[in-house]
């Protein structure tokens, strides 16, 4: 589904990703961990199509296609979804209006009819319920004045509505209280199918108790330096990153 080969990416001539290799197959759950500033959000931004970053070497293939030239919306239309580490506040656009627009624009791009209003309403109601989101919340301006946890929950609500093939969740757990974490993780698990995949970026093993990864990768200084099974996350929780840093000291 996703294949990243020797990916180098820079912002303003500063190289941040320094040769990433990663393959994600349908049905899989991958976790990416790594210290602050190691390049996790950069990697997800590059996959989502943030034009601030320039790919200087290597390639990203999604369903066999090199997506470098695709606009962010085209990637979304193909089923890529990024849950932002810092969701952007957009005053004046309600969550519902935003969701309607996103869904219908995506459907339009896929050559489908607009979703019927009652179907839209039904979907919105169902997904909001699944994530324990108050309906009143949906008429508020997108992310404006939302608490950290509310923003993250709202990201997963959007994911549920858009039903992506590849979802990248960038620190969706940060800011969530224990109950919310369970609700959100449960939501993600319910969306999981054999034909879609999830990449979870997190600092904490706790989330991975709920969203159980098939693989755990450690990103350090722009490179994936270690990969393993879910037990790697436990090891990191216990020992931190120093031992890996030492293994890879230049």
């Amino acid at each position, binding site marked *: 589904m996703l294949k990243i080969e020797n990916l180098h990416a820079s912002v303003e001539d500063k190289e941040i990703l320094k040769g990433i290799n990663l393959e994600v197959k349908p049905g899989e759950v991958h976790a990416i961990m790594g210290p602050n500033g190691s390049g996790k959000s950069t990697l997800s931004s590059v996959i989502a199509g943030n034009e601030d970053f320039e790919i200087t070497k290597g390639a990203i293939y999604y369903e066999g296609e090199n997506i470098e030239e695709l606009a962010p*919306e085209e990637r979304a239309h193909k089923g890529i979804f990024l849950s932002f580490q810092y969701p952007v506040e957009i005053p004046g656009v309600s969550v519902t209006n935003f969701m309607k627009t996103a*869904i219908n624009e995506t459907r339009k791009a896929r050559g489908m009819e607009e979703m019927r209003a009652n179907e839209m309403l039904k979907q919105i109601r169902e997904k909001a319920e699944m994530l324990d989101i108050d309906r009143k919340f949906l008429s508020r*301006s997108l992310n404006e004045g939302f608490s950290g946890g509310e923003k993250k929950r709202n990201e997963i609500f959007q994911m549920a509505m858009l039903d992506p093939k590849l979802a990248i969740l960038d620190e969706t757990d940060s800011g969530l209280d224990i109950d919310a974490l369970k609700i959100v993780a449960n939501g993600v698990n319910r969306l999981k199918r054999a034909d879609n995949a999830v990449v979870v970026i997190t600092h904490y093993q706790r989330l991975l108790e709920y969203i159980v990864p098939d693989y755990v990768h450690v990103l350090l200084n722009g490179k994936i330096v270690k990969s393993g099974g879910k037990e790697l996350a436990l090891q990191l929780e216990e020992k931190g990153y120093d031992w890996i840093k030492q293994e890879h000291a230049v």
Partner: protein
Amino acid sequence: MDFKENMISSFMAFEDHVDVENPIHDIRTEAIKQFEKEHLPSKKNEFWKYTSLNPYFKKQYSVYPKLESALEFKDVKKYFIHEIDSYKIVFVDGVYSSYLSQTTHEGLDVCLMSAALTKPKYRLVIENYFNKVAPKDSLNSLNTAFSREGAFINIPKGKVVDKPIQILHFSTGNEANLLVQPRNLIVAGENSHVQIIERHQSLTDNEVLTNGVTEIFAKKRAIVDYYKIQNDRLNASLIDNTFISQKEQSHVSVHTFSLGGKLTRNNLQFFHEGERLDSTLKGITLIGDKQHVDHSTLVHHAQPNCESHQDYKGIYADHSTGVFNGRIIVEKEAQKTNGFQQNNNILIDDTATINAKPQLEIFADDVKCSHGCTIGQLDDEALLYLRSRGIPKKEATALLMYAFSNSVLDSVKIPELKNRINKLIAMKLGVSLGFDL
């Protein structure tokens, strides 16, 4: 012949067509003298610094159409908010069209300035209000000198008008260089409530110029909501002068939607003559294509305990120019004034210009006044966020612009009008999004 001479000689011809015995004509005569004395607006005048009328003063105008133009309702229906029942006062090239109008009324006057100026039953209202709040500067005086036609709305005490009143000014362009000068008077009696929608619309690609004056009087506790739709063609220029006098506890709001026209000047001034009243001035300007929109506002706080709210959003693209000159004057007596002013602008590309100049002149000491003025570009992060959810760049941009101006639309109290403005904005932005939630 220069513009002044052109107008003065037109005035002499005009006198052949009006009743010079009518006391109103003394006011007109005074006004043409005043016009003769005053300087025409020029860049030397600080309120005209960024808007030049020079090209307009180089032309020769006629002040009354020689031909009468008839229009079919079906051809102009789209310019009305036709989804709702309303009173309609319609003018074609400055001439009243009884055919397109719908003024049957009971318990209020929805009629014509020409009637008000000549019929004895209106004499008192005219004496008390006509030309009482409009300042005597050059262009107002010019309008006063030629005042003959326009809307006259007189709402008696306690009357809540059952439906909005639409005032439409169509220009056919059938005659070259016609200067249309509508003169409107609106008197809202104590505790009355009225909603008015005004639109100027040119119907062809010929040049048209309008110099309109509207005087509004809101008496005690009256509520007046006034909406201006300016979505004209690239050949149409409008100088709009609106002056409002408010008595205690009245609420007056003016929303101005400037979405098109070659040159649009909105001269909007509020004068306070009572306590505990509020004034709302809001506007959305969304232009491109070398268009020019100038908002020159004034709220004159002269009484204690009053509020004013100004909120103007501007989005400028493609060689367009905006001017926002927002003044708040707080007199010594006007203690406990709350005066707010907000002016936010987005420049879509670097060919667009905005000249923003907030002016606060405060002579009282116990007041709360604030103004905020921003000029920026669209938020790239927000754009990426929307796009990453599948909303294409153009639509995402439109959504952000819409969101940016939403605080102005929020207070539009007629849903069908709001809907129409939403559609006009979507059309301007070239998207088919329904911003209807």
